[in-house]
């Protein structure tokens, strides 16, 4: 949508610099465009200018014997012009699309590297709008405005120069009219921007209302609320209609006003020119040519104004894009890498193959086997300064242990896992993984060592098998099926119309929440990571299905360090240690029996479930 954005770029220099870098990759092509545009514009001007010599010289002299020469010269000029136009329009399309392609690619690549905080604090819609609206306006500007602007600028200046050459006295009149036109356009532009801003605000409000109501449409039906809603909508619709009518009326007056000014200009010039011709101050050929120029002169002014609006909103879009591209990506200063190793006589050596055995490789090349020992030391954290979520958390998970977190929503359970895999960094304290601060480990290595089943399962367009393979891109079909069996997803997948080749539609809309979670578990199973983090992994699976998964999960957890977060206490009972969390603190810890014996919060939670039986 090319709405009148009404937004002007704030930091023009920086934006132009960044955009310039993209344009710079096509210097030669753009130079060619500029040259061809110039030829095309000049040809247009000269062609019209030729009216004078054709009338005055070629027709009037020698009884018109040389008319053919004049016409051929004109034809040659015009031909060059049209040919250049063909050239620059084609080149420009290629260059523009290539630039847009580059921008889209770089933007996505950069956005992906941004820290999670960016995604948690920015609406997906806003990020999407960078890719759609903002990239589109740039694309349009490059496609149309760039060449048009150069052409019209040349034409406007050229026309003025030629007008002065043809008749400088008349040109003073023209200059005055030009000036009036420009002043009017500027004044009117400001005024209409005001109208458009108002319309834009109401439109935004309206869109918000529509979004909310459509989202709640089923609730509306259940409460028989359709009539009330309709009248609420009608009111807003009417408001928008009125504002829109006002804005458009105003915007549409600009063109007739400018056109009329140009005609008045034309009339004055024609009359004065006629009088001058009678007095012999000008010849008839000049006047004829002159009048055609005057008629043409209004066009570039119109065009330049229109295009500059497009260009301004494109620059505003470019600014938003480049601002995002200049954001700091995730901090990744770690140097320790995760590598595959083989063991021979107690000696481990790095291996290029997937051996299923892992080790940490330090910068100096020394290898220490991955054990899965995770310790949190006095960890304090808040998503924003001054708002602490976790207070002084210390805990350890020895290799192969299962650590569970329980507690109410908002107690900070998920936050802890966010810190372990460095979606966020601790504010204070330290997380140590096999003796290394997690910040010293390269981020992708760290994350590869941790298998996570996230609270919200997102699936991708592709087949079921592709989605499981997301955990291990080169997994064979056998591995995929084995993983699905571990997660107990195999039986439902088999019953799908095309089994493992069934397409997953728009984020898994054709699967139930429970089935999606099973796939998420399968995804981790195929990844086969040394450490597991399960965040409410089974919350949407009914208890029967959950029981079915449990066996597979036990197999999956065997020999691995596991962090598990669950609402249901039954799922965490066999943990080595259970952390009971409340308001960002660990209030109780111990295994199931110890905690029950403490008769504290865990006991209450646990018996709260049971007191009713």
């Amino acid at each position, binding site marked *: *949508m090319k709405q009148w954005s009404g937004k002007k770029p704030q930091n023009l220099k920086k934006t132009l610099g960044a955009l310039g870098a993209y344009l710079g990759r096509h210097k030669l092509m753009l130079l060619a465009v500029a040259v061809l545009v110039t030829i*095309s514009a000049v040809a247009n001007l000269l*062609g019209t200018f030729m*009216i004078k010599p*054709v009338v005055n010289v*070629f*027709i009037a002299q020698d009884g*018109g014997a040389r*008319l053919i020469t*004049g016409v051929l010269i004109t034809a040659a000029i015009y*031909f060059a012009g*049209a040919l250049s136009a*063909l050239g620059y*329009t*084609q080149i420009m*399309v290629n260059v*523009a*699309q290539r630039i847009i392609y580059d921008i889209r*690619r770089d933007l*996505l690549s950069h956005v*992906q590297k941004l820290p*999670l905080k960016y995604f948690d604090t920015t609406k997906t819609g806003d990020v*999407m709008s960078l*890719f759609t609206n903002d990239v589109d306006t740039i694309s349009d500007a490059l496609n149309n405005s760039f060449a048009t602007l150069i052409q019209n600028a040349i034409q406007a200046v050229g026309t003025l120069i030629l007008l002065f050459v043809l008749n400088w006295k008349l040109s003073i009149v023209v200059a005055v009219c030009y000036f009036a036109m420009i002043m009017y356009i500027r004044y009117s532009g400001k005024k209409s921007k005001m109208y458009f801003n108002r319309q834009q605000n109401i439109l935004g409000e309206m869109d918000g209302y529509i979004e*909310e109501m*459509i*989202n709640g*449409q*089923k*609730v509306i039906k*259940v*409460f*028989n*609320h359709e009539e009330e809603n309709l009248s609420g*909508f009608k009111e807003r619709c009417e408001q*928008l*209609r009125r504002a829109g009518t006002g804005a*458009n009326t105003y915007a*549409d007056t600009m063109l007739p006003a400018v056109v*009329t000014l140009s005609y*008045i200009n*034309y009339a004055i010039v*024609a*009359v004065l020119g*006629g*009088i001058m011709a*009678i007095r012999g101050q000008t010849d*008839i050929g000049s006047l*004829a040519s002159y009048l*055609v120029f005057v008629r043409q002169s209004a066009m570039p002014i119109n065009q330049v104004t229109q295009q500059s609006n497009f260009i301004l909103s494109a620059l505003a879009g470019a600014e938003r894009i480049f601002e995002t591209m200049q954001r700091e990506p995730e901090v990744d200063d770690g140097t320790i890498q995760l590598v595959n190793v083989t063991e021979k006589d107690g000696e481990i050596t790095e291996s290029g193959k997937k051996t299923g055995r892992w080790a940490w490789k330090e910068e100096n090349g020394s290898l220490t086997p991955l054990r899965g020992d995770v310790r949190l030391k006095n960890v304090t954290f808040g998503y924003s300064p001054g708002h602490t979520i976790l207070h002084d958390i210390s805990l350890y998970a020895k290799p192969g242990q299962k650590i569970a977190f329980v507690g109410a929503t908002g107690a900070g359970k998920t936050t802890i896992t966010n810190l372990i895999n460095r979606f966020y960094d601790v504010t204070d304290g330290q997380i140590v993984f096999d003796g290394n601060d997690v910040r010293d480990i390269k*981020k992708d290595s760290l994350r590869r060592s941790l298998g*996570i089943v*996230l609270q919200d399962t997102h699936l991708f367009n592709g087949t079921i098998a592709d989605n499981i393979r997301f955990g291990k891109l080169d997994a064979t079909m056998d591995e995929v099926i084995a993983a699905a069996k571990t997660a107990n997803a195999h039986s439902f997948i088999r019953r799908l119309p095309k089994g493992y080749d069934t397409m997953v539609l728009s984020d898994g*809309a054709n699967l*139930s929440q429970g089935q999606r979670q099973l796939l998420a578990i399968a995804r981790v199973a195929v990844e086969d990571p040394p450490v597991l983090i399960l965040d409410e992994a089974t919350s949407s699976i*009914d208890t029967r299905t959950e029981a079915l998964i449990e066996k597979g999960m036990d197999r999956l957890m065997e020999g691995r360090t596991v962090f598990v977060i669950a609402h249901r206490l*039954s799922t965490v009972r066999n943990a080595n240690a259970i952390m009971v969390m409340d308001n960002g603190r660990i209030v109780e810890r111990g295994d199931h029996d110890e905690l029950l014996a403490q008769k504290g919060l865990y006991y209450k939670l646990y018996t709260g*479930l049971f007191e*009713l*039986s």
Partner: protein
Amino acid sequence: MALKKIAKYIGGYKREFIIAVIFVIIETALELSIPFVMSDIIDVGIKNRDIDFILSRGIIMGICAVLALVTGLLYARFSAIASNGFGANLRMAEYEKIQKFSFANLDKFETASMVTRMTTDVTVLQRALQTGLRPIARSPAALVMGVAMSAFLNFRLALVFFVCVPALGTVLYFVLRAVAPMFSRLQRAMDRVNSAIQENLTAIRAVKAFVREDYEEEKFESVNAELMTTSKKTFRLVALNLPAFQFIMYTATVLIMWFGGKLIITGGLQVGELTGVLSYVLQVMNTLMMIANVILQLTRSIASARRVCEILDEEPELKDCQNPVNTVSDGSIEFRNVSFKYSAGAEEYVLSDVNLKIKPGETVGILGGTGAAKTTLVQLIPRLYDVTDGAVYVGGHDVREYDMAALRDAVGIVLQKNVLFSGTVRDNLRWGDKTADDDTLWEACRTACADEFLEKMPNGLDTDLGQGGVNISGGQKQRLCIARTLLKRPKIIIFDDSTSAVDTATEAKIRAGLAKLPDMTKIIIAQRITSVMDTDQIIIIDEGKVHAVGTHETLLKSDPIYQEIYQTQMRGGDEK
């Protein structure tokens, strides 16, 4: 097709639309007469050295210009009224239609896509009308008048137009015909890019957790490259318009110069007339370009028109019956041989052969695995969907015999995917009872255990919830949704897993509160066995069938599924 259908929604603004068109034509006529007058100045005024004549012609031109301004301004007004009215009509029509949609209709469209159809798509169409109106009205008029006036100035010279106009027309026609299918391909390529980005953004945690940034970039690379290639092909074709236009316009100019020059030499033409005809060249040829541009724009808006039409053409699935029953006498429910599938074409039934009887005032629990069709079952009671076979009776009548609003007033349902609306707590609660006073509201909140947290909020019932209730937690939201439904004082109330985010202790309190409303039939879908074990009857649904019905005691004795659920959920207790 789609555009034609959409065009009807100009509706009551037809008059303004026609007036706008007329003004454009007048404006065009005035503009076009100016070069005509001008040639008089040169050929008559200058030639006869008649200054008065020149002045009089100048005044005529001035008057034409001013008239053109007046008509231009009036056009602006009327076209703004017409196009904005059209947009408003279209929005209203869509919204009205959506209000009539049943759940089945709503299921067909994704929420986001419905929002786009009502916002962006309408804006696109409105703009198409707004920007297209002027050139569409103006171009044919300018074309005809321009050629006619040139012919009047000099018929033989004007013959050039009769060759060049069709030539340009043909070229533009072929370009457009080639481009039209390209645009839908372009749209598809663009959709693929957008959905790739959207997918990446929503799943960013998974992407990062699995370190799949490079893989995602690779995937994006292919859709992005495809979009580039398609865009290049499309726009290169479109870009042919301009040079084609210039070639032909220039040819016309050169031809007119040539023939005009010869005519002047032989005395068959005046210089002023030649200048006049030359001025018309740009004007006449430009009209064709404008038409081509408008058609291009319309082509791009066809996709929007189609999407809007899909909403407008969707038939509401549920129909009110002829002589509806207006009151629901009691809260009894009966399912007789009910089978259901979501669409006629679906292969498998979601529910098959369900028979149930629920007495007024009873409390009924429903248990079953994920995808067992528990939600589907209860949504048949307030007739959110119609059964495929069999019948559902409420208060002794088939639900299809009731007036839909009356039925839904009597059957309250707390949906699983529930929403609150922006506004205060009070605004939201009043959805249940428009006239409720504060005491009544608090009363309902107490039953739903929403009072505890509301009392802690500084503004109580006047607390602003923000859009979609973002200012409160999931459990609090669920409790408000329960209170909202209680305020309807329905004869039957259905809880579709609506306390999943509420802790067990609070949930027990809510159940205790509900027990104080003995006349209300209560149906509770739950995951936790504790939520339903005290009910009058428990219905176990498995794979779309009623697997067993009974009380906690009988089911525990006899039903394997119930025993299994009990085992998994209550294991802890057994050990003690």
